[in-house]
């Protein structure tokens, strides 16, 4: 039987980033799909205005977060791995129903399972860049300059808008699945609690020393040493 240990896993900036981003994605979807004509809530003019402002907030947040990722070395968390990928997929399809243990053990140094790594990495290098680039093109394909309106040279707003819309639908699908997977932690609410408080009850093997024993102790700098990650497969231990 696995023991659990309270571990400080999500740092303050990380949680700030996560929740601000969550709020912005929700808000961008709400205003964005109104601009798309899917429903009426704020009114078109307000929706456009709010969407543009939320977009700037998102871009600023993204810039800060990229900085954070590189200065803390957290970017390594997102390096894709094929190890355990299949096991993780099988867990969601079969194991979870048999109350089998998580195939990947969550630790401070490796908080993402191989599926998460893949999905989040593709968000970061594919979906977000497409959304930000198409969003900026949408905003600036015509812009005022020195008393006249200039064109950015985007040949067709149509293509830009379609890319942006497709991205938005993917993000919506992601959010739905993501919200559900929150409940698949150690207990139904442990993942949510962790992202709010930073602390999570993690399974540990008997005799193992958890990464962090003391509440609030910063652990980030340890991440700068690759190869220190514990073997993620509990079966091998």
């Amino acid at each position, binding site marked *: 039987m696995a023991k659990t240990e309270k571990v400080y896993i999500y740092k303050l900036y990380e*949680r*700030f980033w996560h*929740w*601000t981003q969550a*709020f*912005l994605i929700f808000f961008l979807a709400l205003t964005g799909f*109104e*601009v*798309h*004509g899917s429903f*009426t809530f704020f*009114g*078109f*003019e307000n929706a*456009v*205005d*709010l969407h543009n*402002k*939320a977009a700037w*907030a998102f871009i600023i947040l993204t810039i800060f977060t990229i900085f954070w990722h590189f200065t803390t070395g957290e970017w390594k968390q997102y390096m894709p791995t094929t190890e355990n990928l299949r096991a993780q997929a099988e867990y*969601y399809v079969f194991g*979870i*129903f*048999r*109350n089998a243990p998580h195939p990947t053990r969550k630790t401070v140094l490796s908080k993402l399972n191989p599926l998460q790594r893949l999905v989040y990495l593709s968000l970061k290098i594919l979906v977000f860049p497409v959304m930000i680039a198409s969003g900026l093109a949408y905003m600036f394909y*015509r*812009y*005022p300059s020195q*008393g*006249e*309106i200039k*064109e950015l040279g985007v040949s*067709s*707003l*149509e293509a830009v*808008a*379609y890319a942006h*819309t*497709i991205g*938005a*639908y*993917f993000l*919506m*699908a992601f959010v*739905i*699945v993501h*919200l*559900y997977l929150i*409940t698949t932690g150690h207990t139904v609410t442990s993942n949510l609690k962790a992202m*709010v*408080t930073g602390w999570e009850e993690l399974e540990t093997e008997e005799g193992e020393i958890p990464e962090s024993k003391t509440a609030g102790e910063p652990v980030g700098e340890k991440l700068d040493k690759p190869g220190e990650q514990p073997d993620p497969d509990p079966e091998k231990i």
Partner: protein
Amino acid sequence: MKNTVTFILSVVVPLIIITVVLRDAKQENPLLAELKEEYSQPHIPSVDHSKHEALQRDFDNPHEITATCISCHTERGEEMLNSFHFTWEREDFIEGRGVTYLGKKNLLNNFCTGIFSNESTCNRCHAGFGWEDMDFDFTNQYNVDCLVCHDNTGTYEKLKGGAGYPEPNQDFQTIVQNVGRPTKTNCGYCHFHGGGGNNVKHGDLEEALLTASRQVDVHMGVDGGNMDCVDCHTATNHVMKGRYYGVSSSNTRRATCEDCHTSTPHMESMLNTHVPKIACQTCHIPEYAKVNATKMYWDWSTAGDLEDGKAFELYDSLGNPIYQSIKGDATWQSNVEPEYMWFNGTADHFLLSDKVDTTAAFLPINTLFGSATDPESRIIPAKVHRGRQPYDPVYLSILQAKLWDREAGKGALWLDLDWERALEEGMKYLDRPYSGQWDFVDTEMYLPVNHMVSPASEALTCEDCHSRNDSRMQFVEGAYIPGKTTYAAIDTIGVLLIILSVMGVITHAIIRYISYRKINHSSNA
């Protein structure tokens, strides 16, 4: 829990505050105040014509009045011979036709159809005297009518059926002593009455503009700018700025909103970015014919019916003639929502020598060129006047009927109500081939709407165009309009993706719940 609340508040509240603070307050462009100041200055004439010796007399010959004007304004007569108000034709280049000489002089329309053989009545609105047939002398400066444009008493009257000559026995002495810059009354004398009555033709130009409020027209409204036509339609050597595309073809010498308001007139750049593709008029003239109705449909084919052997007329509740034996059926409308189309400022016209395409749904009397992909094109509001008018099914040409004469029995439709004879006389006058057979063809004419600009507070709102249903742009092709345009495949696949995600998640949750209960049950047992 407390931590959670504090945390969420510290994220959400600043965002809300930032959003509210960043919200722009609506401001008025300071340029507007400058323009109001500039155009509220009264026009002070440099000359008091009542002091001129040459004008201390009465006149009975209109040509003599013109000669007297020219005796001081020595070059203006020759100048007028080149003015479109006198020539009624322009040299233009039309794509596909080359250089053309077209104008009211020789073009068709789908109102009274054309001036040929009807000059004496139509040309009451010619700035000249005596154009009653093809022999009119366009080179004689004494044939120019100065007074119709320059009478400032508002009393000068041209004779009905008088080929441009004034009614005799007017107080010409008072009139000539009170000439000056043209007022709305001068321009309106003809331009309000195109098509044979107030507001028949244009829909945005009518008598009500003489007394209208700024709600009807911010520029001309008496409590608005109270501006004159010539404030915008300025002239150099009697050549006016402004184009009416029922008779014009080229994108030159247009009177534009940008002349005063610049191409970035809004304080909000989001609105300014519309300017390259959306004409100002599109948003700022949400409707036309705001006071009196305008004619929207004119069916000549029903003309000629009699009641008790006599011509008769039927009126709608507002007093607009919906049937006249002499003109046929008509539809009138007020507060009309314009139709919207791409327009780059150039147009083509259906000529008497052109062939009618009987397979088409309708025949365009004029064609406004433009498309979404043409960088010169913008979306404009237009009045579309639909009609049915006679054509020759054998020679496939539009027919010109003789409508008017001084006396009955000479084949004029409006007097004799005989189509056969009227068409025969009209085509004989034109000296064009006519098979003797006639039928009616559906026609459309496109009249860009430029006047009756509403106050900014009544301009279209975003939702008027940016909405899935009832968008004003619903028939405008080729533009991606956010909130209106959708690509069905993307939305279908997108919504399907969301539904599949939701269903997948729910199914997974249910199986998880059931298996969880099973496991618990068995372990408890």
